């Protein structure tokens, strides 16, 4: 049916068991210019007529012969075809009208009726039906259009491989993206089983089947993995398989979306290699620098032993020391960045460690006329990396001497069952509030630029303490000095190394 039928002769079926009335209606209809496709006297014949002929409208008497009355017949016809019905009835009791309503007729005519009444009723109903059909056609066309648009979108999408497989795993659709990414043309792949995409090893492991099972169970299967193109080359793919189910939850098929992420993967791999290369370079450079530094240091020390009063020799030696520390820092930084700062956790006595360091620093403090106060109330141990913890404490003590020379520096250790705490307290100028937060960041220096160093010491210390599951805190007031507090859990916690 379409709009063109508007001007064609409407074909009308008359269902009327009273012959004289039927004849009268038939004549009337012909006079009015309609085509009477048939006149039948019962429901069964009426259904037969609509099944075999094209009918635009039915005039249906309610009281007819046979097992079905007109209302029942209209009901049956409505289940099969969308044909408008006008009921004809001699009397209209409430019950009949109610039943008629359920059959959703387009109109009623109460017998006896005039020809003009019949004409009006037919024209109104036909018009109503046409506009209803038009709407239906329009919405169907809109659906087709939106489907076409969607198909166009799917088919032309080259970024994603989008294809569908049936419940058994056979490929039933294949878009441009699939062709581009996988390398198969639609005509060579549609109908094939999708296990064709898997390597013999994957196929023997029934990977394809496994993926569908997961998609069927959970609604979705997702992974990032290597996939193989038609030419055998590999690409790094993001894969999503979605199961498509009917209203009874029976699997109808699967939708597969694949994206080629090789470029990202290659970029990541290049970056990883660049990091490895950098670390290797750092390691070699550090070694190459240390060897001449060793010769320099030894030669200077020999010269100093021979001529102990030569001041320039001790200045040179101090600079050699500084160079060594800077190289250690650089190497540690590159290890932290690449997550390679390794720890060896074993039972370590913090008090002894601090005691030894106090001893080592004694001379340096004496030279600066700075008092070093080391207090030990108790022995505190824990499971730590002694070398790295020593590095932290050395850094804190050296900082105190560097930034607050001439003022006493106090170091003490406290502890309870769970934690050990180390305090390094100076009486220097203190650290401004706005600098306190940033002090553990990389390349951050508190003091004047005249103080040497890359500003990596506290950053490294912070990373080391965090790798132990501990914290490093700063309490400082301008003019009143600074206290660094290192808190270390005595038992090893599950922590991520930096």
């Amino acid at each position, binding site marked *: 049916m379409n709009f063109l039928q508007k001007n064609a002769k409407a074909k009308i079926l008359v269902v009327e068991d009273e012959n004289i009335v039927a004849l009268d209606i038939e004549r009337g209809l012909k006079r009015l210019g309609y085509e009477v496709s048939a006149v039948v006297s019962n429901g069964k014949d009426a259904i037969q007529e609509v099944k075999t002929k094209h009918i635009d409208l039915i005039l249906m008497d309610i009281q007819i012969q046979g097992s079905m009355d007109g209302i029942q017949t209209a009901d049956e016809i409505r289940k099969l075809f969308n044909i408008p019905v006008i009921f004809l009835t001699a009397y209209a009791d409430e019950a009949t009208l109610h039943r008629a309503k359920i059959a959703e007729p387009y109109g009623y005519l109460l017998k006896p009726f005039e020809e003009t009444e019949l004409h009006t009723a037919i024209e109104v109903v036909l018009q109503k039906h046409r506009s209803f059909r038009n709407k239906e056609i329009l919405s169907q066309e809109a659906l087709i259009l939106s489907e076409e648009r969607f198909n166009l979108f799917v088919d032309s999408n080259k970024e994603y491989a989008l294809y569908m497989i049936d419940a058994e795993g056979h490929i039933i659709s294949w878009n441009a993206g699939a062709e581009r990414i996988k390398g198969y043309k639609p005509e060579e792949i549609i109908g094939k089983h999708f296990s064709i995409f898997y390597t013999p090893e994957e196929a023997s492991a029934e990977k394809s089947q496994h993926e569908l099972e997961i998609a069927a169970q959970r609604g979705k299967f997702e992974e990032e993995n290597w996939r193989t193109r038609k030419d055998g080359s590999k690409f790094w793919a993001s894969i999503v398989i979605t199961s498509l189910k009917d209203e009874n939850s029976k699997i109808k098929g699967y939708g597969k979306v694949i994206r080629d992420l090789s470029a990202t993967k290659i970029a990541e791999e290049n970056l990883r290699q660049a990091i490895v290369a950098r670390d290797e370079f750092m390691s070699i450079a550090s*070694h190459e620098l240390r*060897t001449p530094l060793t010769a320099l240091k030894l030669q200077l020390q020999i010269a100093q*032993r021979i001529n102990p009063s030569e001041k320039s020799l001790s200045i040179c030696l101090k600079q050699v020391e500084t160079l060594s520390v800077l190289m250690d820092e650089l190497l540690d930084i590159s290890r932290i960045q690449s997550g390679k700062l390794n720890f060896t956790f074993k039972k370590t006595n913090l008090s002894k460690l601090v005691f030894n360091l106090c001893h080592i620093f004694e001379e340096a403090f004496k030279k600066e006329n700075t008092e070093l106060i080391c207090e030990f109330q108790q022995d505190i141990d824990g499971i730590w990396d002694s070398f790295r913890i020593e590095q932290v404490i050395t850094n804190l003590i050296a900082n105190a001497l560097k930034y607050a020379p001439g003022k006493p520096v106090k170091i003490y250790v406290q502890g309870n069952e769970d934690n050990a705490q180390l305090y390094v307290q100076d009486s220097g100028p203190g650290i401004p509030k706005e600098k306190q937060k940033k002090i553990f960041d990389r390349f951050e220096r508190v003091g004047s630029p005249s103080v040497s160093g890359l500003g990596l010491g506290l950053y490294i210390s912070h990373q080391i303490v965090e790798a132990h599951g501990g914290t490093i805190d700063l309490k400082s007031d301008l003019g009143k000095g600074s206290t660094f507090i290192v808190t270390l859990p005595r038992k090893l916690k599950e922590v991520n190394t930096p």
Partner: protein
Amino acid sequence: MKDTRNCGSILIVEDNETLLDTFQSLLELEGYHVVATKNGKEALAALETAKRPCLILLDMFMPIMDGWEFLEQLKLKDADLITSLPIVIASAAGEKAESAAKQVRGFIKKPFDLDALLKIVMTFCKKPKKDTNTLLN
């Protein structure tokens, strides 16, 4: 306590010639006998001819034959050799060098102090010549 140190020579394996010279001159000044080699290959040859050294001071990064290859070659000769020989690795700290150091008798991180070096030497070696000036404080 029994003195297990011997009077043998000190075998130095170091590719940096200035450092090698420094080691040699200062240890000779201290009265030790020094055999200086520039790589693992030379050191293996020296071990063939010289009598058992009291100490092998081994650098790791070297051309021709590096420290790791040198240790492997020793293992091939005799699995126990790298633990029975008095080997001390003198290298910049690095994971590779540190893990190699676990197989041998000691590790000294470059750059090290004169005192640290002399202490190690004294731990392993007896002075063949007495009354030499000592640089050790």
